[in-house]
């Protein structure tokens, strides 16, 4: 099977709607097919990655710890749009530190999150075979 470039575009905040969780589920299912996967977090999608989420009091499942498992599924190209973070008063420090282990580099731990400008992300998006939007 030919490898295709998949990009999952995340634009919704978590918990207010089901989009964020559904996207994560689809990414994890898709990871089984050994494709070239990228995730993009744009607009309110950047809120999906905030650290310290605690959903105990709202009675919903806190799915944010699952993002840290993506590296184990070879999902390690996670693009976060700089303009979206800034507009929301956030920096990378407000997000989870997501890493993956590079087996070609003696399992060195490397950052999964790539902070990119809108223009840079537009270039990455244009290279994809398939974009799935959530």
């Amino acid at each position: 099977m030919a490898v295709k470039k998949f990009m999952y575009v995340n634009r919704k905040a978590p918990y207010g709607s089901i989009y964020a969780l559904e996207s994560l589920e689809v990414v994890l299912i898709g990871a089984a097919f050994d494709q070239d996967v990228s995730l993009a977090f744009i607009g309110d999608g950047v809120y999906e990655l905030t650290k310290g989420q605690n959903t105990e009091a709202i009675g919903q499942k806190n799915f944010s710890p699952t993002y840290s498992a993506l590296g184990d599924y070879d999902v390690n190209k996670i693009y976060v749009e700089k303009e979206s973070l800034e507009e929301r008063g956030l920096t990378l420090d407000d997000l989870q530190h997501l890493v993956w282990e590079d087996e070609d580099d003696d399992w060195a731990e490397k950052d999964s999150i790539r902070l990119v400008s809108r223009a840079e992300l537009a270039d990455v998006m244009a290279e994809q075979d398939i974009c799935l939007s959530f």
Partner: protein
Amino acid sequence: MTLLHTVNKSPFESNTFDTCLGYAKDGSTVLLIEDGVYAATTGTSAAEKIKNASGVTFAVLGPDLQARGLEGKLADGIKVVDYEGFVNLVAEHDSVQSWL
């Protein structure tokens, strides 16, 4: 007549918050719930608008803020309430306008 307004949408995703502000008269309260809590975080244009809206009381639902990991980002001048506090606000006002 005092009104309690609730907003449950992100200020970045819809104009619900802005519309609500346009209708919030002096003496009324705006309670931010669900994705509405993002308007209560520092460094956003929404937080600036809250700062400039004198005469209106702003509150945010703590459980929704905690769920989103943004407790430490709460802007000044916004009161945090729990579910009991939500009920008290409803009881203290003459009616409730739930902006959707």
